[in-house]
C-alpha cells in the first residue's frame, strides 16, 4: 500500500511538472511573438534606432528565438530565471520580496473562509429546511454575487471614510518603524482586516454550498440512522462519521482556491494597495518585464501543483480508496 502511495505521488509530480513546462514554453513563445517589446519603456521614440537595438542586445532579445529559448531552459534548470528588466535584480530576489506577504495573506483568508463556512453550514444543517436555513442559503448566494472590487470599495467607504476605524490602503502606517513589536503586529492586523473580509466573502459562499449539500446528503444516509438507533451520541456521529465523509469535495475546492490565492489576489491587492504577487505579475506584464513574468508564472504554477497535490493526499488519508486519484 505504502509503495503505491509513493509511486502515485511521484507520477503526479512528474506529470504536473510536464504540464508546467509546456505552459512556460507556451508563455515564452507568446511573449516573444507579441508586438512591441520591453525596450519601449527605456527608449523614447525621439532617440536613434541604434539605441533600441543596443537595449535589445543588452536584454539578449536580438538572438533568434530558438537560441533564446535554449538559453532560458538551461538557466532555469540551474535555478536562474534571469534578471528583471525593471528592478535590475535577479527575478528570484524580487519574487522573494513579495512572496511572504502573499503566503500569509492567502493562509489567513483560507482559514477564515473555512471557519466561517463550517459555522454557517452547521447552523444551516441543524435547522434543516427551516427559515434560517433558507435565509442563509439566499444570503450566501448574494455574497457570492458581490464582486471583489465592489465589496472592497464599499468596505473602504464605510470603515475608512465614514467610521474611520481601519486604514484604507497599504500594509504599514507611516509611524510603523517607530513602534515596538506589539504595536507593529497590531498595525499589520489593522491593515489586513478589510482585505481579508473583502476576499473572504465570495469564498465563504462557495465553501458553504459544497459543505452544506454534502452534510445534508450524509445526514440522510441510513448508516447515520443506524448509529443514532444504537445510541451513539450526536457529537461523536458528527465528528467521526459525518465530517470525514462530507469534506471530500471541500478539500478539493480548498486546494484549488489556495493555489489561486497564492498566485495572487489581484483585485484585492489593487484596491488596498497591498504588495502581493498579483500586482507584481500584472506590473511585470504591463511593463513587459519578460523574465519576471515567466518567474511569477513559474512560482504560481509550483504553488498550484503543491496545493492540489496536498489536497489529494489529504483526501487519500481520509479515504484510502482515493489513492488512485493522486496519480490522475
Amino acid at each position, binding site marked *: 500500500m505504502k509503495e503505491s502511495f509513493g509511486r502515485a505521488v511521484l507520477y503526479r509530480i512528474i506529470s504536473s511538472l510536464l*504540464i508546467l513546462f*509546456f*505552459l512556460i514554453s507556451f*508563455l515564452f513563445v*507568446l*511573449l516573444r511573438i*507579441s*508586438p*512591441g517589446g520591453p525596450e519601449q519603456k527605456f527608449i523614447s521614440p525621439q532617440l536613434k534606432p541604434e539605441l533600441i537595438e543596443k537595449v535589445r542586445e543588452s536584454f539578449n532579445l536580438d538572438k533568434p528565438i530558438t537560441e533564446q529559448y535554449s538559453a532560458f531552459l538551461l538557466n532555469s534548470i540551474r535555478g536562474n530565471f534571469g534578471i528583471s528588466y525593471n528592478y535590475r535584480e535577479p527575478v528570484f530576489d524580487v519574487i522573494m520580496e513579495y512572496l511572504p506577504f502573499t503566503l500569509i495573506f492567502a493562509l489567513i483568508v483560507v482559514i477564515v473562509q473555512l471557519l466561517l463556512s463550517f459555522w454557517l453550514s452547521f447552523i444551516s444543517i441543524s435547522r434543516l*429546511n427551516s427559515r434560517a436555513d*433558507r435565509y442563509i*442559503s439566499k444570503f450566501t*448566494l*448574494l455574497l*457570492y*454575487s*458581490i*464582486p*471583489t*472590487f*465592489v465589496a472592497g*470599495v*464599499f468596505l*473602504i*467607504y464605510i470603515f475608512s*471614510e465614514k467610521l474611520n476605524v481601519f486604514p484604507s490602503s497599504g500594509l504599514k502606517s507611516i509611524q510603523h518603524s517607530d513602534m515596538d513589536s506589539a504595536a507593529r503586529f497590531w498595525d499589520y492586523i489593522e491593515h489586513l482586516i478589510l482585505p481579508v473580509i473583502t476576499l473572504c466573502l465570495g469564498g465563504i459562499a462557495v465553501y458553504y454550498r459544497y459543505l452544506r*449539500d454534502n452534510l*445534508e446528503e450524509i445526514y440522510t444516509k441510513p448508516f447515520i440512522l443506524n448509529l443514532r438507533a444504537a445510541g451513539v451520541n450526536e457529537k461523536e456521529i458528527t465528528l467521526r462519521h459525518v465530517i470525514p465523509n462530507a469534506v471530500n469535495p471541500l478539500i478539493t475546492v480548498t486546494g484549488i482556491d489556495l*493555489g*489561486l490565492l497564492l*498566485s*495572487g489576489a*489581484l*483585485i484585492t491587492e*489593487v484596491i488596498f494597495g497591498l504588495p502581493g504577487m*498579483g500586482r507584481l*505579475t*500584472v506590473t511585470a*506584464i*504591463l511593463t*513587459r518585464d519578460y523574465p519576471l*513574468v515567466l518567474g*511569477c*508564472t513559474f512560482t*504560481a*504554477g509550483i504553488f*498550484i*501543483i503543491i496545493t*492540489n497535490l496536498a489536497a489529494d493526499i489529504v483526501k487519500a488519508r481520509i479515504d484510502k480508496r482515493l489513492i488512485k486519484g493522486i496519480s490522475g
Partner: protein
Amino acid sequence: MKFRIKNRHFILFALLLLIVLRFSRLSEIAVLFYSFIRSLFDRHVDTLSALNFSLTDNFFSLIFLTVLVVFLFFGKRGKPVLDKAADFTSIVIIVLFIFFIFAPFAATTEPDFQNNIGVTKLLPPFSEVKMIHPVYSNYATDLYSVESRLLNDNSIYIDSIRKAENGYYYFQKGIKTRAEINKIEFKDGLPLMGRRIFILGTDEYGRDVFSRLVYGTRISMIVGLGAVIVSFLLGISFGFLSGYSGWFIDTVLNRFTDMFLSIPVIFLIILILTFFGNSIFTIIFILGFSGWMSLFKIVRSEVISIKQKDFFIAASRIGLSNRKLLTREILPVIIAPVIVNLIFQYGNVILAEAALSYLGLGTGLNYPSWGAMIEAGQEYLSQAWWMIFFPGLTLVLTLFTANNLGRELNLYYNPGISE
C-alpha cells in the same frame, strides 16, 4: 382564481411607463422618422449619409417598441415563459433587457453628454437643475435641423437668471453671463425654463449616472452573450471531438484543458489583452476562450456515456454525419446541464468584464461600462458615494439574478437535489 402578475403584464407595464414618461421624446423621434422616410424618396443619397449610429439606434428602438407593445397586447396567451408568474429574477431580467434594447428612450441623456460642468458636477441623486434653451437658427422641418435639435442637446444649465435692460444675465456658480434676447427661447414673455432631474446624480464630468448605467447594460450584455456563444461553440465542438475520437486526441485535449484549468486565467487574459490590444472583439473572444473548459468536461463525459447507448449506435450506423450526430442526437440529450453551465458562465463573464474595466483594460469604446464607472468613482469616494453605489448595485443584482436563475434551472432539471 387569484390574479397574479405575470411576466407579460410586467413587461407591458414597464413599456407603458416608458411611453408615458418619455412621450415627448418618442413623438419627436416619430416625427423625425416620418421626415426621414419622406426625404428618403426625394434625396436618398443625402438622407442615407445622414444616418449615424445614434439615429439608427433611435429608429430601431421606436419600431421595436411599437411592435413589442402590439405583440404583447394581441399575441397568443399561454406562452410558457411570458405567462409565468413574475418573480424577482424575471423582473430584473426584464428591466435589464428593456435597458438594453430601449437605451435611447430609457436614458434621459446621451451617455457622454456634458454641459456646464461647473453647475452639474458631482450632484447627489434626485437633484434638480434649471436650464434655458438657446434658439436654433432655423426651424425648417428638413431632416438635418430636426436631427440636430433632437440629438444634439445643447441646453444651458444655470443656477439662476435675472433680467437686465438689454437681455438676461444667468449665473453659473457665481459666474455671470449675458444672454441676448434673441439667443434664448421665450414663452409668454419670459425665458423658457426647463428642469432636469438627475435621478441617480452626476459624475465628475457632470454626466448623468443613470443614463450611463443604462447604456452600460449594452456593453455588459453584448460582451456576456458574445463570450457565452464563443465558449458554447468551443466547448461543444471540442467536447464532442474529445469524447467521440480515439484515445490520442482525447488524452491530448484533456491534458490541454487541465493545463488551462490549473492556471489563474485572469493573468493570461490580462497578458493577452495588453500585448495584443483590447477591443470589444478581443475581449469577447478572450473571455469566451477562458470559459469553455468546464463545458468541455461536461460534454466530454456525456458524449462518452451516450456513445454506448443504442439510439446513438443506430444513428451512427445509419451513416449520419458528425455534425448531424452532434446536433440531432447529442445536443437534445445534454441541453439541460449545458444551459445551466452557460448561465453560470454568463455571470462569470459579466464579472470578468467589469473587473477588466475596473483595472482599466475595458473595451476601449466610448460606451460606459459598469466596471469603468466604479473605477472612476473610487477617486471621488468621499464626496460622491452614488458614483459607485449604483453601478455596484446593478452589477450585484445582475450577478445575483444570473446565479439564481442558474440554480433554479438546475433544480428544475434535477428535481432530486434539495433546495
